[in-house]
């Protein structure tokens, strides 16, 4: 079956522009996670969704970052007024439920802010 997909795979943008990153989780997975991976760094947790609800937004680096999930499926991560330090690979993962479960990752979106 289809895995987690993310689009675009690569995004180059100019400093100050807004970007939207999309994640399509595995069908039926209720939990969805966003991470950021900078060069040489581990995965930095950003936010998770249980259904359409995001109980904990404390991982978002600043108020320029926001995320939403609609219909318990697709999620969008929006970064407003991008900065060069936002350059990273943004990874999305989903799992059947938000508990002890394997997370299935998408291929990521590589964001480059010039």
């Amino acid at each position, binding site marked *: 079956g289809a895995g987690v997909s993310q689009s675009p795979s690569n995004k180059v943008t100019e400093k100050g522009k807004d970007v939207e990153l999309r994640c399509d989780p595995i069908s039926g997975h209720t939990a969805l996670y966003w991470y950021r991976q900078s060069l040489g760094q581990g995965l930095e947790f950003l936010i998770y969704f249980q259904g359409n609800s995001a109980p904990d937004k404390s991982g978002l680096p600043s108020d320029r970052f926001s995320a939403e999930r609609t219909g318990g499926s697709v999620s969008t991560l929006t970064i407003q007024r991008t900065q060069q330090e936002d350059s990273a690979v943004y990874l999305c993962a989903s799992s059947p439920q938000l508990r002890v479960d394997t997370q299935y990752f998408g291929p*990521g979106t590589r964001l480059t802010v010039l």
Partner: protein
Amino acid sequence: SQKIEQNSEALNIQEGKTATLTCNYTNYSPAYLQWYRQDPGRGPVFLLLIRENEKEKRKERLKVTFDTTLKQSLFHITASQPADSATYLCALSGGGNTPLVFGKGTRLSVIA
């Protein structure tokens, strides 16, 4: 603050030998621990999960141990092959609704 350390950034090993990767943590009481493999340009792929009340878990050539007293997990790949070359990440969770916390990973290179 919570800290997860994976023993080295990179590890080189001869084909056929056993690779051992280490994951140490502090200021944390994980309910379970997971190991993932990440290839360049791809997202991590789940390998094994071990719970706090389990000492060891095996899957084919892979073995994971979990010592909550030492606050350490060891990840072993026996009879290593060049195809095992990748970055291996450990991840901890307190269980319930707490998300996974990942280490920075160890880049393993198996040399033929």
